[in-house]
């Protein structure tokens, strides 16, 4: 191989970039006989620069950038009946509205019936134990249980949307029962 040919090959190598080349698909060159030898005494080597179809694989991330997004926050404003608790608590693994919260529920029912345009979101929550998606479904059951209590008191179902936050919005931090019992709850949120 003369120097012009080598230069030609190098030019090819540097300009091509579209497709990959497998080194073992190019002709085998005995390094001892090759003018592009780097001094290796090995034989049976394939040689990258000896391939006339040589090109290197241009590597780039398929999605080289991930475009960051900032979502908007939302304000925690809630109207509703004055001086009435806006949360009821549940026992472990339970969806039963306990009798001690009946007065709270009746006060909300009264408010919703006398304010037909009021819209209530009942937000169910769980403690941190268990899977996140399954807890989301469990929290939904708690919100639905409170809705059922309100319906029995004559509240129009169209005024209520039940949603769940699962274990995602704990009221108390910690991994002991004192925190868990505060987190197993349904909250009343009135949309203004």
């Amino acid at each position, binding site marked *: 191989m003369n120097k012009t040919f080598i230069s030609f090959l190098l030019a090819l190598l540097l300009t091509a*970039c579209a497709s990959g080349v497998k080194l073992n698909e190019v002709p085998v060159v005995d390094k001892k006989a090759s003018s592009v030898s780097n001094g290796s005494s090995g034989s049976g080597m394939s040689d990258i620069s000896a391939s006339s179809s040589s090109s290197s694989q241009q590597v780039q991330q398929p999605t080289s950038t991930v475009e960051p997004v900032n979502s908007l926050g939302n304000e925690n404003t809630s109207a509703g009946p004055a001086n009435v608790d806006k949360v009821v608590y549940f026992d472990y693994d339970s969806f039963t509205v306990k009798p001690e919260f009946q007065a709270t529920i009746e006060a909300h029912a009264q408010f919703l019936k006398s304010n037909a345009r009021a819209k209530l979101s009942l937000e169910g929550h769980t403690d941190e134990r268990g899977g996140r998606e399954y807890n*989301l479904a469990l929290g939904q059951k708690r919100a639905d249980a409170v809705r059922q209590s309100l319906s029995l008191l004559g509240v129009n179902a169209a005024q209520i949307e039940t949603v769940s936050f699962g274990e995602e919005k704990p009221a108390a931090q910690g991994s002991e029962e004192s925190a868990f019992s505060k987190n197993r709850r349904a909250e009343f949120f009135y949309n203004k």
Partner: protein
Amino acid sequence: MTRFAFALTALWGLLFGVVNVAHAEFKVEISGVGITQIPIGISEFKGGDLAPQRITQIIAADLDRSGQFKTSKPGMVIDENTRPDFVAVKSKNIDGLLTGSVTRLADGRFDIRYRLWDTVRNQDLGGQSFVAFTPDLRLVAHRIADQVYEKMTGDKGIFSTRITYITKHANRHMLWVSDADGENAQAALTSPEPIISPSWSPNGNELAYVSFEARKPVVYVHDVSTGKRRVLANFRGSNSAPAWSPDGKTLAVTLTKEGGSQIFIIDAKGGEARRITQSSGIDTEPVFTPDGSAIYFVSDRGGSPQIYRIPSSGGPVQRVTFTGNYNISPTLSADGKWLAYISRNGASFKLQLMDLATDKVTTLTETNHDEKPSFAPNGKLILYATQVQGKETLMTTTLDGKINAKLSGQTSTIREPHWGPFLKP
């Protein structure tokens, strides 16, 4: 290359210890020793110091994490054009030897070349050249690891695939996309409200997830390269648990719009939702079988959460799990042969693997807070969230549970991982 399957060192199978593979840039903590590990030498690449990333360290960490390899440093610099001294290599007790070089090009790019040698038969197993700018050097290393893995095991490598996960720091919830080793993380979404259940589309371009930013769970689909996102499901009540069909045209989601948590199918472009399950209790966490014909899901219809299976057009339901009283978060391997899920036993939540041909179940982990498993696209590893010494972490395990690796990269709380598909090179 089945000959490598026999190339295990019996000694390693007898030992069961903890191996810490420490590297200068990052640390891969790997515990356990597999019984069929291929011993491979990773020589220093000629000119390897030129690149800002230690290519050979990334390759070695990838191969170690797979559980299929036992990497070592033969202590020599060998480029891809040099035939190794096989007599000297014999003493290293390795079945393969990776050689290569790094060259800096005039335009600032790097040319990384490798060649793999079968040091049992003294054969050239081929190599390749990659040209890349600095930000893509990690990907080059992962691509080389993929090719080494495939040449020596016969299975496709997964090191150049990507994962997604969620972190929470104070009140910042972030959705991330990173390399399969947890490195090179890029933020896709930052929100003051929680994000859960990110799920890769089959083409690897989009993520579906649940965000609470609208003060209720709403399912979004998010194009990660443009940052454009759309609301997929925002029906009355809760919207959650998105799972893509294998063709990417539809998603299964859990909706409460008709009362209770039930599974619906919705077009990937949005629109009306078609109900699939019919129960008075909880049906959630759907996942399609690889052929799209059925959906595995969690239901409490029998009194406790168990995994069931239903045709994806609806129809008769078949119970899948029978052991224990809390089995959730099903996920399937791409060949449809394995079901991984989480089982509660007392206060422990542990990753389980069921062989769907025999229904045989094995527990894969020593940890007690396992969550959200997903398979690598080649089905050889499972990614999951757990807690180690009270700290949230992401880990991978081999299907025999013998090799567990902790992914690094994030220091805050980290959870909700999902392993993405193979990407086109």
